[in-house]
């Protein structure tokens, strides 16, 4: 029983400590900051490029921008656009009609938080169990003279 409690404590400790660094590592290694767009058809891109004036947002040439720039994991390279009109911007085409659903780092952080919370709770319970079992084994041991 004590061994099980110790094992649970170790696992809980890992669950408490590892998720955030893992999420940070995944984000750093495989994440990319992008502006999501629902893409325009080629004819629309052609027209928007013809009518675009310097100073206007570049995103409108390529599609309908969604939300604020965000970090996504494993964006498909073929869905990325670096506009020649403004190479400082990175756009990610998201075609919902085709089932595109890029993994957002925001989702990773959310689950990391809850894993940490769950890990903390089970860690406390495991350590409490270890303490109780240790005391029981001491009390049931041979009395001191």
């Amino acid at each position: 029983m004590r061994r099980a409690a110790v094992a649970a404590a170790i696992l809980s400790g890992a669950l408490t400590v590892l998720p955030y660094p893992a999420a940070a590592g995944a984000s750093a290694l495989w994440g990319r900051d992008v502006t999501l767009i629902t893409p325009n058809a080629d004819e629309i891109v052609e027209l928007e490029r013809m009518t675009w004036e310097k100073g206007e947002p570049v995103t409108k040439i390529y599609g309908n921008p969604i939300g604020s720039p965000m970090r996504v994991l494993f964006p498909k390279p073929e869905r990325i656009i670096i506009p020649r009109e403004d190479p400082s911007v990175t756009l990610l085409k998201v075609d919902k009609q085709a089932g595109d659903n890029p993994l957002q780092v925001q989702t990773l952080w959310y689950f990391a938080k809850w894993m940490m919370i769950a890990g903390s709770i089970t860690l406390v319970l495991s350590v409490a169990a270890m303490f109780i079992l240790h005391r029981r084994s001491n009390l049931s041991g041979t009395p001191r003279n």
Partner: protein
Amino acid sequence: MKTAALIALLGVIFQDGGTTYYVGHHEKFVNIAFESDAAIEFIVGTTHKAAGEIKFNKDKGNSVSLTVPVDSMKTGIDMRDEHLRSANWMDAAMFPSITFVSKKSEPVKDKPDQVQVTGDFSLHGVSKEIVVTVSWKELSEDATKKAGFGDGKWVKFATDFEIKLSDYGIKVPEQSAAKVSDAWKVKMVIYASTAKPEAKK
């Protein structure tokens, strides 16, 4: 003869001068996105289907009537789309369309390429008056011909606004609150033409 001429003259005097633009030629001319920002995920959905008419007279006398089919809305996950259409959410079977019908429009001060449109937005069988600011841009015939747009004179209309699902009788269940927000942003970009869309066979 004289009566016909008089009627024609009266028509010229009393017409509001607006030109009717039609929406629904092809999916590529409609780009509507809807966003929900919740704790777990920033959900984005799109539809490229809309039909209707926009009577456009620049700063006054504008009117809009648009219909979007609920089952054309996709969020990238089939199961989520099924939920979206289900009776607990948009109930597409009972309320198959989302509509907007304008009641009045006013120019926006110091912004000649924008109008403020007041109208009834209907979703899930509930109609509420909303006010949206619409940007417009007349597209040159040269540009639209080169880009292969098709017949007619084209105008681009764009707007974004926010709605709350709860205002339309759609309650986000507590267990879904982290996944779906009550407030949704809608962003529309529509290209409309004076040529009528071809009737679908």
